[in-house]
């Protein structure tokens, strides 16, 4: 069974941010349960059902750099 990669995505070169459940900001809140209630983009965030769709949309051909630093 393939991995579920649905979620909110934002591309901020060189990072493709992925939030499978929620995005919280002081200006907005996005939850997967209400993903269809919004008009995207919201501060650069979009919903995609797969990471491949996100890659195609953001025209990312190289392997994804998830974040700038990981702890």
């Amino acid at each position, binding site marked *: 069974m393939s991995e579920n990669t649905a979620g*909110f995505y*934002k591309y*901020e070169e060189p*990072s493709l*941010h*992925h*939030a*499978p*459940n*929620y*995005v*919280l*900001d*002081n200006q907005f809140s996005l939850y997967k349960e209400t993903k269809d209630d919004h008009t995207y983009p919201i*501060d650069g965030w979009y919903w995609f059902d797969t990471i491949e769709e996100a890659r195609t949309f953001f025209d990312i051909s190289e392997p994804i750099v*998830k*974040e*700038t*630093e*990981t*702890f």
Partner: protein
Amino acid sequence: MVLGSATANSARVNLGQAKLTGNRWTQTFQNCKMGAAQLNEMYTALAKLNPNVTNVTATAGVVTYTVDDIRAFVAARTVTITGVTPVAYNLTSVTVGVVTAGAGTTGTFTVTNAATGTYVSGGIASLQDNRTITVTGNPGTATDDPSIATNKGWTVTG
């Protein structure tokens, strides 16, 4: 530094180190076995990305803003300034120039702009990019308080 296989105690020790480098821009604390208390501690350690402006001066096309938390400011980041009186100092999506640390967390940053005037009051300097903190996969996300971070201008994702 790896927290992925850390125990609660060792994660707490490592988290103390993370505070030193994890408070300026985009960070991932994914699958770190962090509880709510540890997440809240991390959120508390973050620098403000939207510090208050406490003074503005201008000389020869360079505007200098004094803020109450300069820690997240580095040259070339993008900042938007709002709420300053006089309004000439409210600038959108401008580039941070020289950053100088002051006492405590205070400091100044410069912007190249022709605005002039005597500072009266107010202002928030909001950094625009690299504001994401990812906490996916931590057990504490069910009961943590991400508003500690979002109130400081961060975007928390899980």
